[in-house]
């Protein structure tokens, strides 16, 4: 009770001698933890799918007409649509049929093109993933080292410059920085293509993705940088860092094995959020660089009231966010042994 607060006096585990070998019993609580996380993710996905399905019901006008789209609304066609979508059943039954079909990979037919939704999405998902991952990797490569540098030079000129640049990147919308990049590197310097996804060759695709990825990365690097800086600062100020230096551990080793190791968890959590945001947020960049990705598909589908496609893209984006969060949640016990063994501190 010397320095602990009255509140910690309540947790009896802190002073009770730990039973031998909690590390060896780790398998069980870890599996339980993973199962809990997985169940939560599935539950969340169900809730999201319900909301996405409700989009259709909320769409203005007659559902059958909406689903028919540009096709001529003959009574036969309308009746066919009504029965195909179970529109005469109660809402939850409709949802059940839709969900069952979705689980079998059938997300309906595009109102606009008449092609299966899965095909429309499948054609474009590759490009969007490449774009998002590329932007993510660039943001990590810039944000983490510069965030660490800023923390190490806390309060000095380097720190202020790095942070300032981060804020500029953060506050410039992706289309603005994208246009600037196009102007500088495509129009002025003519080093890289200004728009499009290229003719399909790997190298050409890569060349076409450089500027969009940079534009995308710029919008989130500032976030990662700030996050890294805060996490590293906290570790630098921690007693255990001073103690490592005090027993003569070389500063470089302290930085890599103590400081960055300790900052890893908050950075990984933040990076997960950033990745989820990127997967769901490529719209602006795709529009700026005329890339035929999911974002473009979403914009076009909203414009043409192509509800099945909107549903599919929204569901996909939500699943991506949930999956990324699940992965981060499953990674945390690998990073932090205290979560692994259910310890309190």
């Amino acid at each position, binding site marked *: *009770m*010397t*320095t*602990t*607060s*009255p509140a*910690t*006096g*309540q*947790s*009896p*585990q*802190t*002073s*009770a*001698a*730990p039973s031998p070998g*909690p*590390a060896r019993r780790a398998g069980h609580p870890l599996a339980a933890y993973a199962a809990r996380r997985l169940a939560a993710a599935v539950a969340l996905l169900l809730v999201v799918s319900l909301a996405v399905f409700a989009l259709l019901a909320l769409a203005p006008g007659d559902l059958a007409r909406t689903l028919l789209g540009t096709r001529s609304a003959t009574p036969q066609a309308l009746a066919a649509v009504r029965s195909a979508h179970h529109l005469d059943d109660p809402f939850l039954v409709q949802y059940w049929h839709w969900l069952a079909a979705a689980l079998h990979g059938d997300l309906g037919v595009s109102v606009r093109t008449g092609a299966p939704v899965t095909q429309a999405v499948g054609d474009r998902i590759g490009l969007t993933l490449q774009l998002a991952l590329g932007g993510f990797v660039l943001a990590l490569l810039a944000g983490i080292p510069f965030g660490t540098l800023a923390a*190490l030079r*806390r*309060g000095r000129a380097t720190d202020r410059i790095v942070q300032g640049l981060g804020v500029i990147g953060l506050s410039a919308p992706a289309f603005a920085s994208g246009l600037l990049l196009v102007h500088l590197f495509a129009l002025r310097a003519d080093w890289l293509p200004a728009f499009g996804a290229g003719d399909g060759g790997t190298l050409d695709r890569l060349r076409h993705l450089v500027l969009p990825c940079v534009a995308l990365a710029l919008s989130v690097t500032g976030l990662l940088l700030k996050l890294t800086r805060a996490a590293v600062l906290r570790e*630098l100020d*921690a*007693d*255990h*860092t*001073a*103690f*490592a*230096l*005090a*027993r*003569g*551990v*070389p*500063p470089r*080793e*302290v*930085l890599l*094995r*103590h*400081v960055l*190791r*300790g900052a890893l968890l908050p950075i990984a959590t933040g990076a997960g959020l950033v990745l989820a945001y990127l997967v769901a947020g490529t719209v602006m960049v795709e529009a700026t660089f005329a890339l035929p990705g999911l974002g473009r598909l979403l914009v076009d589908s909203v414009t043409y009231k192509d509800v099945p496609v909107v549903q599919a893209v929204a569901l996909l984006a939500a699943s991506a966010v949930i999956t990324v969060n699940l992965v981060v949640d499953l990674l945390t016990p690998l*990073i*932090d*042994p*205290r979560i692994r*063994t259910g*310890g*309190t*501190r």
Partner: protein
Amino acid sequence: MTAAAPKPAPSRPLLAVRALRLETASVPPRPLVHGLDLDVQPGESVGIVGESGSGKSLTARAVAALLPGTVRAFGSVVADGREIIDSRSGRPGGLYGRAPEGHRGRTVSLLMQDPFTMLHPLRTCGRQIADGIRAGAPGTSRRGAALAVTERLAEVGLAPGTADRYPHELSGGMRQRAALAAALAPGPRLLIADEPTTAVDAHHQGEVLALIRRLQQARGMGLLLITHDLRVAFSACDRLYVMYAGTMLESGPARDIETHPAHPYTAALLAAEPSVRERYETLPATRPAAGPAAPATGCPFAARCAWAEADCRTAEPVPHPVGDSTGPGGRLTACRRMPAVAADVAAATRRTVAVTVSERTARPLLQVRGARKSYGGHEVLHGVDLEVPEGGAVGLVGESGSGKSTLARLVTGLEQLDGGRIVIAPDAAREDTGGRDTEPLLLAPGRPARGSRLALASAVQIVFQDPYSSLNPVHTVGSALREAAASPAARRRGDSTTTPVPTAEELLESVGLPAAYAARRPAALSGGERQRVAIARALAVRPRLLVCDESVSALDVSVQAQILTLLARLRQELGLSLLLVTHDLAVARQATDQLYVMHRGRIVERGRTDRVLDHPEAPYTRQLLAALPGSPALPGDSGTSRRTEG
């Protein structure tokens, strides 16, 4: 600032600090440590004693070349023949603060205070010891390091398997041992231990000190022990330096300082130190500090010193020899009035042992019967009985996790019982006049009704440990006190007492603070003043029982003595009953008549405080007493507890 007393050293000192000056890197710089001289000979055990703000920990950091970037150092620190201060730049610290090759680790290693934060939470103990081993002997093979880790662990009494454990899997005492193993891993010639026992349970303090002492002697290593606790310093050090507000006030052999302090401050510190063996009439407390800031000129202690003259407030204190003791290790004092006032100081700080504790048979005010409480399926109180007599002072001692704080929170209604009951007797003063509170207040398991909660709050108030977090920083002291005095509990109390509602000013005066403090915010108060405000706030309700949950344990010893004196006075003046929850047996001895010893959720011993502490019967009470620093610890005892732990 070069007023160093020349000391012809017989051999080259392991550590020689000369005119060390530390100041903030701000503009203008604020001085933190003023021209400090300090020596540690090889194999010698030296202590720096001081209260918070004395600069002792910064001095330790400066010697370890680990100053934060916000502090600059000037002067000279020579460790093992090498200068580590670059006076031109003031050498800012930080992660890449330079130190000569091998200074940190091989020459000097620093053991820090808090075993809960000192070790990296994500790395096993073995890895953290191993990186220290490689720092001492670069190029050690994996296998060699693993062997050395086992050796280091054995040295501190931990099993080899501890190497694979993470810090959170170990108890506080084991973590402190693992940290000690890590600190010693590079084989330092000087170990700096910064408050190594403060965060450790009282139960393990003596053990940790004895272990550090034993390893120091076995390795022929120098030890620089930083502590606020005179008992710790006397039990572990050959020589002491006493610091106050960044200034060295006195130095010399520990035994001499203990018996004949040569500075009024040291004398006051010694007098304020509660003893577990005797109870004093009062602990002669120094005047409270004028405020958090120290004066810029003159002796920093002058404002609190009863012997200060005009010159003390203007002339810089210069250390000079005491009596005829010259040469290395001799006595030095910075008091310009010594030895003239030595006899006066000794007389004024002499303590009289209290004759006896009045054997009162007052009726019980608080009765706890079979109290049970669980958290998360884990029972922390296994049926506890406790009684506080009307106007009595009862101590509840035990180590952290014993359940004593839980009991305090149950009694105050901050937690609800899972079993048993708590009874508060009706107010004797109102019984005959037919007031409302003539029925005893009964708390049973489950959430009590609002009426009961109010009645409880009006009868029982609590003062917490940390005065820094228990006061809202945005409210002035006055508004905090007025709010408490106007609370529903205080109004309810108004129905059953004739004492008028006190004003904020009256409350402040009752705890010995000027009424003008009502306009201040907590940030403008020192720790002791904040704790006085916290007590005043509890008194605003005019409670009958005051529960003090470790209320003095975060305070400096001189402030602690002031607060204990205040509590004794309040008991006398207001007829207040006191339940003092503490880990500190000496505090319990000074402030209580009855004592309950708690261990793992059970009362293991109860009785008159003097009898329990002088003739303990329960093995656990004996263990607690034997673990105190300076107690003749039984070697067999500490060996057993080590084995059960490791």
